[in-house]
């Protein structure tokens, strides 16, 4: 499983340290540009919300999956907890959705702490398999525990209070909320790129034994990464719940959703600042294009794309592009 090192060393052309400022500028410019999206594409705001929201959730996934190298295929659990906690508190207790989202975030963090505490002793594919099991069990419980979740028939959100005078059901409002969330996720990724904690996570990803020999407590750092990842994903889930207005356990806790988040990050470039964003844009935007140009064949083309990316850009597109630029 180890990469054979190319022989011969060469001094690098440009140091990575200090590159943080330029990527920060890039992120800010990008976010600023995106604020014009609803005005530029008024008929495609829904698509925009989906892309930005999934980009935010994929970035959140990436904190654990990309930066820490712990492949989770169960992140839909946090999407589901975020959506359900918010919606159930709105429907049953009349709690405002933003407070509901906060409670959901808390619940997600608690779940992540237990989940991580128990399964982080597993390494490699075993952790991934365990995450599938946790997510599938959560889905089954949510599907059957009708008294808590409304069961397989799902729940809908007919009305929501105004948020600071804004209608949360307006696609424009949803777009900007998703954008704020994306900004938050990018900020976290930017910080990970250069902070001590971020380097700890990367060291764990690269080699857990070597990381331990350098005084890093992998379980503790992984759990922290998981908590951050879960909290952000959960916020995304709350927003996704509002966006859909109706949802059921089968969709919200689905393995498909978990795999999608991972795919977005990997295809764009896991453990990079913009990778998950690029991946989400490509997969969500791309499948809309495919739907129109290859009616009925979009999933097929999607599969071919995944294969091509793995063969020719195994570290993701953003990494491949950066490498091509350097060469």
């Amino acid at each position, binding site marked *: 499983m180890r990469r054979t090192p190319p022989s011969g060393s060469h001094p690098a052309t440009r140091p990575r340290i200090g590159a943080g400022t330029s990527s920060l500028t890039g992120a800010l410019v990008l976010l600023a540009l995106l604020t014009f999206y609803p005005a530029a594409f008024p008929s495609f705001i829904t698509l925009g919300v989906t892309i930005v929201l999934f980009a935010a959730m994929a970035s959140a996934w990436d904190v654990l999956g990309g930066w820490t190298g712990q492949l989770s295929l169960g992140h839909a659990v946090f999407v589901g907890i975020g959506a359900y906690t918010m919606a159930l508190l709105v429907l049953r207790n009349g709690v405002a959705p933003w407070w509901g989202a906060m409670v959901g975030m808390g619940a997600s963090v608690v779940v992540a702490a237990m989940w991580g505490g128990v399964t982080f002793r597993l390494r490699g594919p075993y952790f991934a398999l365990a995450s599938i099991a946790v997510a599938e069990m959560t889905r089954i419980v949510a599907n059957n525990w009708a008294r808590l979740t409304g069961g397989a028939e799902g729940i809908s959100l007919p009305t929501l209070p105004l948020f600071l005078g804004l209608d949360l059901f307006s696609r424009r409002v949803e777009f900007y909320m998703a954008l704020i969330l994306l900004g938050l996720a990018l900020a976290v990724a930017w910080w990970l790129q250069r902070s001590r904690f971020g380097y700890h996570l990367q060291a764990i990803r690269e080699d857990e034994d070597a990381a331990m020999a350098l005084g890093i407590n992998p379980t503790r750092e992984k759990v922290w990464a998981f908590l951050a990842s879960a909290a952000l994903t959960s916020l995304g889930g709350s927003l996704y719940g509002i966006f859909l207005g109706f949802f059921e356990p089968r969709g919200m806790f689905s393995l498909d959703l978990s795999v999608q988040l991972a795919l977005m990050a990997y295809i764009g470039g896991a453990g990079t600042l913009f990778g998950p964003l690029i991946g989400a844009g490509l997969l969500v935007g791309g499948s809309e294009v495919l739907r129109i140009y290859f009616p009925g064949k979009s999933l097929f083309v999607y*599969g071919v794309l995944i294969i091509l990316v793995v063969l020719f850009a195994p570290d993701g597109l953003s990494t491949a592009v950066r490498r091509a630029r350097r060469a």
Partner: protein
Amino acid sequence: MVQFVQIVVNGVFTGGVYAIIGIGLSLIFGVMRIVNFAHGVFLVVGMFTTLFFFERLHVDPFLVIPLVVLVGGLLGIVLERFLLEPIVRAPEHASILMTVGIGLVLSNLLLFAFGDAPQIINTRYSTSTWHLGPITFSTALTIAFVLTVVVIGGLALILERTDLGRSIRAAAQNADAAELQGINTRRVRSLVFGIGFALAALAGALLLPQLFAHPSIGPTYTLKAFVVTVLGGMGNVAGAIGGGLLLGVTESLGAAYVSSSYRDAFGLAAFLLVLLLRPAGLFGRSRT
């Protein structure tokens, strides 16, 4: 009591089929360290291959099994050569992504070729039964079970007695060491993936007379295969048999006496417990 025995018997027979789904996955993981997310789709490919022969040539599904196995084996070898061999040194997530992509492509090819309606075939033994005292046995399931036992026995013989089997086991234990001993691990990987695909296809052929084929049903089987493999120990071929039987019986008893709506959860709970408490599987020796 009779009913209990009946339910356990059902569980054992279903478990036999689960075992054969799991063995291929386990073998592939053991030698290649690849968690094959396309495994269920391979099974569906086997179903449709069988269906093709059944409908075009009007041959009994159980009689075309050698053909199905051959098709599966060849497909597996080709896939390995062109798509998995190039990324053999890449990090593990690459192989997971690759198999996800392969699964999507294969299931959509099936969709183009066979359409999206679920395909059900009706054979003489699809609903027939035989009896042993008060216990009823499904004929289709019995044939499937017997064939499973034969195939697993054959596979065990190959692994234990032949040079190929020794190469496979050596590669599974330590690829680098096997390479040093002059074993062509590249060839072994291709063969193993071929065998894995063939076993999944075989499972598809065995299941077709009782269940249905649909291009998008693959992931359900993939998940079952994961559970079986983890219960038995990833990479432990013999363990997969135990894992399959255990899953079959657990689900049967759970569905009958607890609740059928939690059926899949019982298997998953066992899966998680085994992962955490005995990562080498219930039937494996710990390697650390």
